[in-house]
C-alpha cells in the first residue's frame, strides 16, 4: 500500500477539513511501517543505473546467456502531459541506446530504442526496439529501481546476422550502480 501523504508537499496550506483528512491518512500510513526519512519520501530516480535485458524464453539463446547488461544514466525529462525520464547509454553517443519513459504512479513505461547494435557487458551485440513497463521501488539508499519489468517488442542478439526475436514476454531490470 502506498501512502498518499508521503507525496504531499509540506508547505501547502490546507483547509481544516482537508487537513483532518491528511492527518487521518498519516495515521493510516503509520500502519505502513514507514517512519524514517528514507522510507517516507518518494524514490529518487537519477544518476547511474545498470539496465539488464532478458530475452523471452521463446527466443534462441545466444552466446550462452539470455541476459545482457548496459551501463546507463537516468535524468528527469519533462512534465507534460506526464512526468518523464530519459535513460541513455553511459559515455556513448546520445541516442545509441535511449529509453524514453513516462513516470506516473511509481510506474515507468515507454520506449527502449537502439540506433545500432550495442555491445553488452557480457559481449554479444544487442539491438532493441521495445516497450517496457516496470514498477519502481526504493532501494536501501532511497533510490528508485525496477526489479521486475516487462518488455515487449524486438530484441535482437548477435549483430546484423544475429537472432531477432519479437516477443511479448522479454523482461528487464533497472538498478542503481
Amino acid at each position, binding site marked *: 500500500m502506498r501512502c498518499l501523504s508521503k507525496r504531499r508537499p509540506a508547505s501547502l496550506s490546507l483547509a481544516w477539513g482537508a487537513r483532518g483528512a491528511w492527518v487521518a491518512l498519516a495515521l493510516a500510513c503509520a500502519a505502513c511501517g514507514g517512519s524514517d526519512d528514507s522510507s517516507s519520501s518518494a524514490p529518487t530516480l537519477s544518476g547511474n543505473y545498470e539496465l539488464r535485458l532478458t530475452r523471452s524464453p521463446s527466443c534462441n539463446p545466444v552466446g550462452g546467456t539470455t541476459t545482457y547488461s548496459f551501463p546507463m544514466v537516468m535524468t528527469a525529462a519533462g512534465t507534460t502531459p506526464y512526468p518523464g525520464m530519459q535513460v541513455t547509454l553511459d559515455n556513448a553517443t546520445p541516442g545509441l541506446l535511449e529509453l524514453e519513459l513516462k513516470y506516473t504512479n511509481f510506474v515507468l513505461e515507454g520506449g527502449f530504442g537502439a540506433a545500432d547494435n550495442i555491445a553488452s557487458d557480457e559481449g554479444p551485440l544487442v539491438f532493441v526496439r521495445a516497450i517496457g513497463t516496470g514498477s519502481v521501488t526504493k532501494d536501501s539508499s532511497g533510490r528508485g529501481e525496477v526489479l521486475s519489468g516487462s518488455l*515487449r517488442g524486438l530484441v535482437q542478439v548477435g549483430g546484423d546476422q544475429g537472432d531477432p526475436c519479437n516477443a511479448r514476454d522479454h523482461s528487464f531490470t533497472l538498478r542503481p550502480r
Partner: protein
Amino acid sequence: MSKRVVTARRWAALAAAAALLAVFGSTGTSAREPLKVRASEAFAPVLQPALAAFSRDAGIPTVLDVREPDPPGDADVVVGDDSELTRVLEGGAADLGTSVDLGYLPWVLVVPPGSPADVHAAVAGDERLYVLGGRLGRDARAALGRKLPARVQPSRDAAELRAARYALVPRSLAGPGEQRDAGLPPLVAVAAAVSAARDPAGARQLLAFLTSPRGRSLLSPYLSPAGASTEATATGGYAVAVVDWWMPQCSLDSNWYTDPQKVLGPPDAVYLGYKDGYTGMMSLGEGGYVTVDMGTSVVDGTGPDLRVFQTTSNEPVTVYAATSPQGPFTLVGLRIPCGHRTQGYFSNHCDFDLHDAGLAQARYFKIEDGEIYPCLLRGTNTEGADIDAVQALNPPPL
C-alpha cells in the same frame, strides 16, 4: 567503458565493393555522367533489365550500386522496401513528392522439389536454411520466429543465396529449387529521386520510365502489380475523442506534428509538397501513444475489427484495447508494420483483430508507436508512427 559499435555500413561497403554493376546501353559511349541508382540486394535483380532498357531508350547510362539505400550517398535514385526508405523519405534525403510504388516482391521458401510440406521436416539432416541478412531479413526472421528451424544461416551474398538448397528469400534471390509461399507480407518496392541528385531531371525521367507500361513489364518477372491497394470503404465510424496521450519531452521538442486531435475523424493527412510539410496527422515520437474513444463499442466480427491509418511508409504500430478509458488495456497487435496502401488516401493502413487479444468487444484503443527510433538522434521532425485516423471495421449491430 568503451562501447564497440558494429554497423551495417561494414556489410554495405563489402557488398558495394563486390557488386557494383555498370549497366550501359547502346549509347553508353555518351559523355553524359551515368545516373546512379542505389538499391539493396533484393531489388538489384529486379531492376537490372529495366535499367538496361532505360539506358537504351533514353540514352542515359545508369549505374546500379548494390547496397542499402539509407543513406543514399551520391545516388540519384534510391529503390528499396518501404521499411528501407522510411527515414530517407521522412528525413528529406529523398524527395517524397517523387516517390512511387513499383510493386510487391514476395518472400519465397526455396526447397528441393518434393520436399515435405513442413519446413522443419523439409530442412532435413545437417542442411542449413539460408536467409537474406540485413534489415529485411531481420524482419522476416522475427516475423517467423519459432516457425524457422534452428539451423538458420543469414547471408547477403546473392550468389550464395541462389545456390542454397534451402533458402528463405525474396523471389528475386531464389535459386532453381521449388518455390513455396513463405507466409510473410511481401516487400513493397518503392523508388524516389534523391533530393541532392546530380541529375534530377534524369532521375525523374527514370522514375517515369519505371512506372510506364514498358517499365512495369520489365519489372514484372519479380514484382506483382502495385495497384492491389485496399479501399477505405469499411462500414464503421472513426475515433471521436482523445482520452489520453503521451510522448517523451524529447519528441515534443523535436516533432512538428504533436496535436493528438489530428487522429480523430476520417483520414485526412496530406503531404504539402515540401520537406516535412504535412497536415492532418500526429507523429507519436519514441514510444508515444494516443488513446481514443470510438464512441461506441467495436465488436469482434469476421476478419479485422480496427483499422489504423498511418502516414509514412510502413512504420509499425502497437494497439491495445479496453472497454473503459481507464483500462485495463489488452495487447491486440505488437509492432505491426502499418503500410498497406489505401486507395484514394495519402495514408497507408494496418488492421487489427480483437480476436487476437481474446476480446469480444472494446471501445477504447491505445495506439502506440512501434518504430521506437531513438529520439536524441533527431533524424526527422516526424519521429515515430504518424497516425492519421482510427476506424472501427465492425461496429455492433443496430
